[in-house]
């Protein structure tokens, strides 16, 4: 069984947000509710201030704290290493959002993050929380795996495009968007990444590109000290860095 993971090369990432847009279109995200986001932040002060950015999908941790705290088992980890939410079991307690160190979870029913409220503009008349004009085919909607347009009052998050990767041929070491045979099984953010900063593959296969990148370029995990052991790795090289702290005025 594969253990899917992602490697993001921060030296290549240009902060174009194409991944964010592709994710939103692929997964019918509400504007502002970005399962995949690129976070812009500044480090240092004038005259040496720097604008930086950091792409951040769900980290699909080996030991996900969101799953540990879920009182119903709605958040679970699949055999191939993906952390998902069963929307039929989620009670909307938001404890997972409290416990996730990476802030990658979203609650459906709250004040719109971006105006106008698209749930009002494209109102749903069934159990879906909204009815966007663009959406994946109904056949792909899968609430047990948190895929599709979510119902009301549940929590949602990045699925690594589970509706794509779960259909990949068994034993595939890497889902390379350059390979036409694998493109449709590759997560949307990886497919769309113009500078080719994203790699997706089997972390348990030492021959996979992701495994070799992690080994050769010393891949690091975000907030590794917490013990969640993300399955998203960052390679930094000389030109990038994983932000280690929050940009908040700290006491000296």
């Amino acid at each position: 069984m594969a253990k899917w993971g992602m490697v993001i090369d921060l030296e290549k990432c240009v902060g174009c947000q194409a991944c964010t847009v592709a994710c939103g279109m692929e997964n019918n995200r509400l504007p502002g509710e970005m399962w995949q986001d690129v976070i812009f932040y500044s480090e240092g002060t004038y005259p040496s201030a720097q604008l930086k950015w950091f792409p951040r999908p769900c980290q699909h941790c080996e030991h996900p704290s969101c799953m540990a705290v879920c009182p119903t088992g709605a958040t679970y980890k699949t055999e191939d290493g993906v952390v998902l939410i069963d929307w039929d079991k989620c009670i909307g307690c938001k404890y997972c959002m409290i416990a996730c160190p990476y802030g990658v979870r979203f609650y459906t029913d709250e004040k719109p993050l971006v105006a106008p409220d698209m749930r009002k503009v494209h109102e749903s008349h069934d159990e879906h929380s909204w009815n966007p004009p663009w959406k994946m085919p109904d056949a792909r909607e899968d609430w047990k795996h948190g895929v599709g347009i979510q119902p009301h009052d549940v929590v949602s998050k990045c699925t690594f495009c589970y509706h794509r990767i779960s259909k990949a041929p068994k034993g595939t070491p890497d889902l390379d968007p350059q390979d036409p045979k694998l493109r449709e099984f590759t997560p949307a953010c990886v497919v769309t990444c113009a500078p080719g900063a994203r790699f997706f593959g089997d972390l348990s296969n030492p021959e996979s590109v992701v495994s070799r990148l992690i080994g050769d370029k010393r891949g690091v995990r975000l907030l590794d000290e917490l013990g969640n052991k993300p399955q998203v790795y960052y390679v930094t090289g000389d030109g990038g860095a994983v932000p280690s702290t929050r940009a908040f005025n700290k006491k000296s």
Partner: protein
Amino acid sequence: MNFTYPKTVSEAFSAAFKMFGENYRAANVWRLSVAALAATLAFVFYKLLTEGHATFNTGSDGITWGLLVVVYAFFVLTSTGLTFVASMAMVFGFKEFYPIAKRCIWVAVLTLLAGFAALALELGHPFRMLWAVPLGVQTHSPMFWMGVFYSAYLVFLLLKFQKVSGGDWTSGTSKALGIISFGTVVIAHGMLGGLFGAIAIRPMWFGPLIPVYFLLTAALSGAAFAIMITYLTYGGEQAMPDKVRSLMRGAMPKAFAAVLGIVLVATLSRTGIGLWSNIDGLQVWGHVVHTSWFWIEMALMFGAFAMLLMGGGALFPALMVIAALFIGRYEFVIGGQMVPLFKGTWVPGLIEYAPSMTEWMIVVMSFAIVFAGWAFGERTLNLGASPQD
């Protein structure tokens, strides 16, 4: 007994108000709280039906758990504390607490229900919770165990209340129910403490001593409510039966002052360490001590402590402590989320939050449940009963 069923809603209300007879205080509290309950429920359900949970000012990019979780923690911990007060007589043998024990059990039930009601409105799917939590059996989740033990606690509390209502205070079963209720709520509140204390990424909450801190503040909250309800029942010390009066002048304010003193030390210690430490997340303490609410909380607690030491009545200190504890719960629940997590790296400061009108209405609703329930119990359940009767 002559009884005719009311035919209209106004007749039903009229009958409900008349049932208090000459007990004007309970009748007035009943009227006010039923009216508040009806008004707040109407407002809250209208908002929920038209806006859904977007009527709350919580958000994925801000404060995830808002005022309703504050209310939940405030009331369920008050329930815990009221059980501690009742257990002084029923478990630990301090017989002077018997005259208020039955009333404390009843108000413990009410405060628990008030907390549950606020939580049910906060949850996305409260009815799904009823089957998804027990069938999920997520033994690694503090919230699962909190649900299990608070539910068991409610059942044991009701059984105990039924026993004492039947005049059975001392049988083996009755005593066992008292001990089990006490034990269950100690564990339940520990699970609530663990629910916050286990979250290592939020240092304001994190730590093995949070359940102990909750234990102390729960005891204080319960004692304050016990005093307030006792004064409300009798209207003043003069009207109290001798045993109640001597409790309210003797053991109760002493125990109350002792717990308040310990809570003051714990609160100052938390604040001092929070201000001194440099770990991400604790910066919120710098904000907390710059709010007027923190100083109001401190003034209320120190003022109450001074009044108790000077030997005045316990009512005003109790009211002051209730207000201070509500502020404290707000600081705890909201403050723990105010420093942005990693996702908020671009956020220049703390996350801002102000509860919506709907959230405030649910606070009023929860208090109305407690007071309406108390008035109803005062009229129909002989809450002043004790084994000596």
